[in-house]
């Protein structure tokens, strides 16, 4: 219920959506390119920390935005990419169902990195990237 309201809220704010990529405090800010590479699992380890990128469910607008802006790949391209990568033993990033889950996950697991809507964060997390969706 909360989620639906939240999504509606987000949709109401269709105009300018701000999305952030968050991770633990130890993570430095990342460039778009780095982010892309991380989420395509081309970079696996960063600062001796194994990275665990987190995706939101497939049909969320954030994800679409992320893919469009950061990964700059279409869904079909990504599908193809991950199919290829699958056979090389690399799986797609873990999915979490909700943004809260992402937050929680990142709090718990070092090296986790995920993207959510801009919102207030707990202390132990930091924004490593931001983008907007117009």
């Amino acid at each position, binding site marked *: 219920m909360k989620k639906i309201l939240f999504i509606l809220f987000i949709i109401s704010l269709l105009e300018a959506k701000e999305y952030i990529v968050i991770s633990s405090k130890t993570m430095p800010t990342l460039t778009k390119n780095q982010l892309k590479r991380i989420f395509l699992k081309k970079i696996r380890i960063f600062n001796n920390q*194994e990275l*665990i990128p987190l995706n939101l469910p497939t049909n969320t607008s954030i994800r679409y935005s992320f893919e469009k802006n950061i990964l700059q790949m279409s869904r079909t391209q990504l599908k193809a990419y991950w199919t290829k990568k699958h056979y090389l033993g690399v*799986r797609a990033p*873990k999915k*979490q169902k909700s943004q809260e*889950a992402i937050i929680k*996950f990142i709090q718990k*697991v070092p090296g986790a990195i995920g993207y959510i809507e801009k919102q207030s964060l707990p202390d132990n997390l930091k924004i490593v990237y931001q983008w907007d969706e117009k």
Partner: protein
Amino acid sequence: MFHSINSFIENKLLLTFFIIGMFPLTIFLIYMIYLSQNKILQKSLNDEKIQIEKTEQIVQTNLTQLYNEIIFLSKLEIMDDIVTEDLDKRITTLLEKKANALHMDVVLYVVDKHGKLIASSQRDYAPSFQPQNMQGYQNKEKKLYFYSAIKASYNKQSQLGYLVLEYNLENLQLFFTTTPHIHTFLLSSTQLETIAPKINFAFNPHKTQVINEKYIVVYKKQKKFLEEWYLVYAVDKNVALAFLYDFLRFILYMVPLVILLIIFIAKKFSKKITIPILQLTSLTKSITKTKNFEATINLDTQDEIQQLSQSFNLMLQMTHNALQELKKENEIRLQRFIHLIETFNSIMQTKTTQECIEVSLEKLQTLVAKEHIHFQAQNNTGCIALEAMNYETGKKEVYGALCIDKQHLNNKDEKQFFESIGHMISLQLDRILLINNTLAISHAKSAFISNMSHELRTPLNAIIGSTQYLLSYEKLTDDQLEMIGNVESSAQYLLSMINDILDMAKIEAGKMDIHPQKVSPKELVDNVVTMLMPLLDEKDLSLYKNITVSNSLSIMTDPKIYQQICINLLSNSIKFTAKGSITLQLYKKENTIIFELIDTGIGISQENIKKLFEEFTQVENVMQKKHKGTGLGLSLSKKMAQLLDGDIILESHGESYGTKALFWIPL
């Protein structure tokens, strides 16, 4: 038991077949009842063991499968949500789905590494978990817990928590075959808990099977997953043995049929054997009945009975032959016997001793060679003595001996035979001598009688003649007359006595001759009456004559004797009747002439009648003194009557009742 009219062989065969047939049957039954029962139970046990293992296998497989599933589930990436404490409830959804999919009474839990419940497939209840126990599987009461560690998919070293499957052991009932007769269940080691309906039996952890009254029970301690439990598999005993009992019942129903079959076959086969035997028996019976020893028996059974009949035929033949021989021998013997009898006959015919010896020798010579047998006067050893009675000395003495050559006396029978002949000859000699003796005596008697007759009568006749002359011609005084008269009557009397005695002697010696003539009995009787009339007149007795025979009737008899008898009887009557009458009758009765006298005299008592006919007796009576008589009269008369083929009978009702005398002779 076997008193039927059938042959004993048939019954023996019946019994044999019966035993042969029944013996295996009974053994079979005994085996079935006692031994196979055990076998069936054993087999049952074995089957159950196999079953129990199958069940165990299934259970194991299933549980292992479940466990593997848990392990698999725990490896899912989705389990990373433990980190988010299943915020999105993804794990919960999965657990719920999985629990439903399993269609069993299971609950899935996901707990974090401290044992805190993160997600569960059922919302209401959650047991507490101790993370240190969460290894592999655990059996708590009636629940089985599968544990699988959940590792982070992103970091294999990092354990996030555990996936727990709470499996209700009651689920296992699915794999247990339970029918009304089969009972499968789990029994805890404590024997307090059971999964699935149980049955009672004596549980012994050290054994693996129990057979009690109702059940055949097999149980096995479980390994993996169910270490605290025993899997028990029990089958109702009577079900296991049902087949056996059905079979036994079937056999029992078959038994009467089998018995009938046996009887039928036995009878059939025995007929084959007994019929020839009976044939043989009936044939032999008929042979013995008809004594036809020439018959033969023909049987065609190609077996021992035929052999029997053949040897029987042989025996019959032999018997027949033997009988024929015996017949021949018999004939020969008979011939010999006849010859012997003839020999004896001829010997018997001999009249002198010399003739006897000669004839004997002659006859014996037909049996023995002439040289081997002879007669001699002395008796030696080895000879057969001939003894005869010497009637002069009155002693038996050896007359002579018959000597036969030794060779004929070897055989005991032959010796006896010749001895018997010797006895025979002795007897004959004896007889001849006896006859000679008797003849001599007879001759002597005759001579004596004729002598006596002559000698006695001559002087008496002289006396009588002289006295009669004196009486009739000489002139004598009355006294002298009386005296002479006495002499004369005494002499007469003496003469008559002598006559009587001589007659008696004659008759005794058999010398009395009868001279039968044709005479008329009436005439004779009339003569008698005339002769004795003076006596009657003297005593003043009346005589009633009743003669019914005709004058012309004549009989063949000796008139002198007849008259004499009548005279004797009449004179006796007159003598013994003091007064009254005498009734004389002469009549024909049947084929006899009867001369009957009834007087009114003194009569005779019954005892005395017998005595009267004895010689020389006169019954003592009143008239003794008055009557003279030698006492020979009646006895002589009776003898004379018997000479004429007749008899005299005296009857009297007793003393003083008179006497009836009856003299009859045949026509």
